[in-house]
């Protein structure tokens, strides 16, 4: 009897505590509970621009309190899959969708998909060579040869020729690449495919590829860690990561013959130069762009938006956001070490927004 009574009292405590705690004073309630007329927009995709998008959606919410944009960085592959499946309102990808994926989208959702570049990214070569302190110059052939495994020693004429006066050792080059699928790899392999036919035929471009040689590190951190630890190694990392972590990197020769050191303006210049011959759907690779000031290993990252959005409020919210992103949003880029879109591309995109119906 006593036991049952005790059990009864204890069981009663649960609903009682719940009742007591429900009466929360108003000022403790969360600041931004969505009101019934908040427009909720869901997006998913690329991890590279996530810090930028995160800041943008936050800033945009401050200006337009009735629009809440939710973004999950599940990866470019995931973003493409979810937009085709229709579970999100927009996707994001570090590489443009292939013809096949666009066809898949058309079959699944009955309309076309539009690409909108948002920011620019770039890859830089980082290395760890005994006795070499300064910046090395890399020609297109050098990078392709190193990653193909045809150039095996640091004092190979292709590398030494571009770095006269630097004492390069005769040691074997240890090649480091990304083990996880990533937009960073996409940019790197896209560049190598452009500057080397052998690379294009043998390996190709993608977020994951069949690397001829090399060790794989996970993420920019993994690659940097391996390069730092392994003597005579070379790897590639995102420019932003290199800037934020003070990682020394080398120069790459662009198509005009200049050894360009990657920085935000060089990346934007690459896009500006490429904009002259850019197709209207923005599905273009800007690696190895023409122009003296262009950094050759640069790339866009895109938002994937259907050209027909049924819900009128969502459509207005998305098009408004795009306009804001192209004007006010771009101002936030430098703060987070992203390269902003050049004016030529912004103008073209503004015109393209009208395609969303």
């Amino acid at each position, binding site marked *: 009897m006593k036991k049952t009574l005790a059990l009864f009292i204890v069981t009663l405590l649960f609903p009682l505590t719940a009742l007591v705690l429900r009466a929360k004073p108003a000022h403790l309630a969360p600041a931004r509970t969505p009101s019934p007329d908040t427009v909720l927009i869901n997006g998913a995709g690329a991890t590279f621009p996530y810090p930028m998008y995160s800041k943008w959606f936050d800033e945009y919410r401050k200006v337009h309190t009735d629009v809440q944009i939710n973004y999950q960085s599940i990866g470019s*592959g995931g973003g493409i899959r979810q937009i085709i499946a229709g579970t999100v309102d927009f996707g994001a990808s570090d590489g443009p969708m292939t013809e096949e994926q666009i066809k898949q989208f058309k079959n699944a959702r009955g309309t076309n998909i539009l690409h909108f570049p948002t920011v620019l990214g770039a890859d830089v070569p980082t290395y760890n060579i005994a006795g070499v302190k300064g910046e090395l110059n890399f020609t297109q052939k050098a990078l392709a040869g190193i990653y193909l495994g045809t150039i095996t020693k640091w004092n190979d004429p292709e590398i030494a020729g571009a770095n006269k006066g630097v004492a390069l050792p005769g040691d074997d080059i240890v090649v480091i690449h990304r083990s996880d699928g*990533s937009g960073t790899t996409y940019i790197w392999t896209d560049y190598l495919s452009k500057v080397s036919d052998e690379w294009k035929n043998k390996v190709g471009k993608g977020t994951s590829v069949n690397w001829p040689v090399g*060790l794989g590190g996970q993420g920019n951190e993994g690659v940097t860690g391996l390069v730092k630890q392994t003597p005579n190694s070379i790897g590639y990392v995102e420019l932003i990561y290199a800037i934020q972590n003070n990682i020394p990197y080398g120069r790459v020769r662009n198509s005009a013959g200049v050894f360009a050191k990657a920085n935000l303006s060089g990346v934007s210049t690459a896009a500006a130069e490429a904009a002259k011959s850019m197709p209207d759907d923005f599905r273009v690779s800007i690696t190895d762009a023409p122009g003296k000031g262009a950094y050759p290993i640069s790339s866009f990252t895109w938002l994937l938006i259907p050209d027909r959005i049924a819900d009128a409020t969502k459509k207005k919210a998305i098009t408004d956001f795009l306009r804001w992103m192209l004007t006010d949003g771009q101002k936030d880029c430098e703060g987070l070490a992203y390269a902003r879109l050049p004016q030529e591309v912004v103008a073209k995109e503004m015109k393209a927004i009208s395609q969303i119906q």
Partner: protein
Amino acid sequence: MSSWTPRELLRRLRSGDEIAHLITLICASSILLVTSMLVYQLWVNSQLPRHEFGWHFFATSVWDPVFEHFGALPFIYGTVVTSFLALLIAVPFGLGAAIFLSELAPRKLSDTFAFAIDLLAAVPSVIYGLLGIFIIVPIMRTVVEPALKKTLGFLPFFKGPAYGVGFLAAGVVLAIMIVPFIIAVSREVLLVVPQDQREAAMALGATRWEATWKVVVPYARTGILGSVFLALARALGETMAVTMVIGNDPKISSSLFSPGYTIAAVIANEFKEATGDLYLQSLVELGLVLFLLTFVLNGLARILIVATEQRGGPAH
């Protein structure tokens, strides 16, 4: 069991025993249900590569997401090699430690150690991965691999450049991870060996060590084998710690210094960004392969345990 009609069953369920029987039966079959759903999902979602590649999937060494040629061989090789290397290192250490803790150490020391070892078994694998990158890989590259090369460099296992990362580093990290399991279970099993077994051995003139090694350990053989296979199961599925130290290169090589790749590591690395159905489903098929590998190895474990049980140990 006279009749299976619902009315009959409901009538039989009146006693508490029957209800308990039914509830526990549901619990047990729910495990089976989850496992079969898992296999079903793996099977159904790997349909494309099974039709495209068939059995060639197991014989191809290429993993090319761009030209869409996929083969499981380097990953199977990597998984098996790292796991067995880990066992090779962990079993002597683990068994030795278990024997010490159960037979030779004072009880208090044994209990404290056992507690510490149980804690080790609970450490998340990412921590072991960090231990691998920051401590084990540099030691491998600067001390262990050059030493092995100098002394045993004529063997095919110790040829090639010493990167630090590779099969050897992965095997060592996995060994550190699975040793607590072997010690914990083996120690328990050795402790429950009846005291009269030891006394009988010593009465027959055996030394302390002879009694331990020739009588007590064989008596506990089944349990020790069980602990080894438990450790093997952990090693086969280990993902994060392995991918941080194995070099992530899908190549097959006889040298332990060369980088490799395991099934769990490639799925963890490439699943998120995989675009294209064939690519994605090939990764799922790799998952199915790992499941089957674990299943087969556990089956072998069962057979081995049954076989050794028949030859000696506790009296039936």
